[in-house]
């Protein structure tokens, strides 16, 4: 069965420091891959997506992610974190099987300290 794991439940970084959020998936073929961000009390916003092609994808707000097929990973990175990046981050996988669907990971909560 398809699944998505985000090993870090909560991460705290200092403002200006670099960030990497981990995401691993289990799926037999190449999936569609997404990262979403959710601020408190809000809906989810798409940060970036990978469908095919270049494995390093750029997103909004200075985020990027790299698809590594050999590791079944799609980690999210940002070189310098801003206080406004504090939020919940969800990795998601879109599976093209007999029943198309998107599976969300459990989320990583990011705190940013001044």
């Amino acid at each position, binding site marked *: 069965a398809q699944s998505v794991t985000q090993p870090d439940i909560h991460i705290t970084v200092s403002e200006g420091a670099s960030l990497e959020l981990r995401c691993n998936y289990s799926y037999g073929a190449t999936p*569609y891959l*997404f990262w*979403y961000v959710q601020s408190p*009390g*809000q*809906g*989810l*916003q*798409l940060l970036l*997506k990978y469908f095919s092609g270049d494995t390093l994808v750029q997103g909004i707000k200075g985020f990027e992610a790299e698809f590594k097929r050999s590791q079944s990973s799609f980690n999210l990175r940002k070189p310098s974190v801003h206080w406004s990046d504090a939020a*919940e981050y*969800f990795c998601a996988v*879109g*599976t*093209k099987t007999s*029943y*198309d*669907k*998107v599976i*969300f*990971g*459990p*989320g990583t*909560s990011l705190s940013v300290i001044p």
Partner: protein
Amino acid sequence: DAMVIQNPRYQVTQFGKPVTLSCSQTLNHNVMYWYQQKSSQAPKLLFHYYDKDFNNEADTPDNFQSRRPNTSFCFLDIRSPGLGDAAMYLCATSTTSAGEQYFGPGTRLTVT
């Protein structure tokens, strides 16, 4: 701007009193989703429509129903809300069932 709109943003209902949450979209997307999200958890898919085709998740309680009268609108009906149904309810749209989703701001449901 094209968007997904959810009304109301906050809804308070009494235990057992039916409640309806609404979602509308100006994106003209084929797929509309309803998710339930509890505190510090991932969104849990309740059901989705691909055009008029309704797809219910196997573990969605019968207490939850949905209607999609046209492309733009989708409703979530909770027939007899229990205390455990208090949550954020998120509506989302997509052009395909496995593609990127566009979320509304959510409706926070409180059950008293």
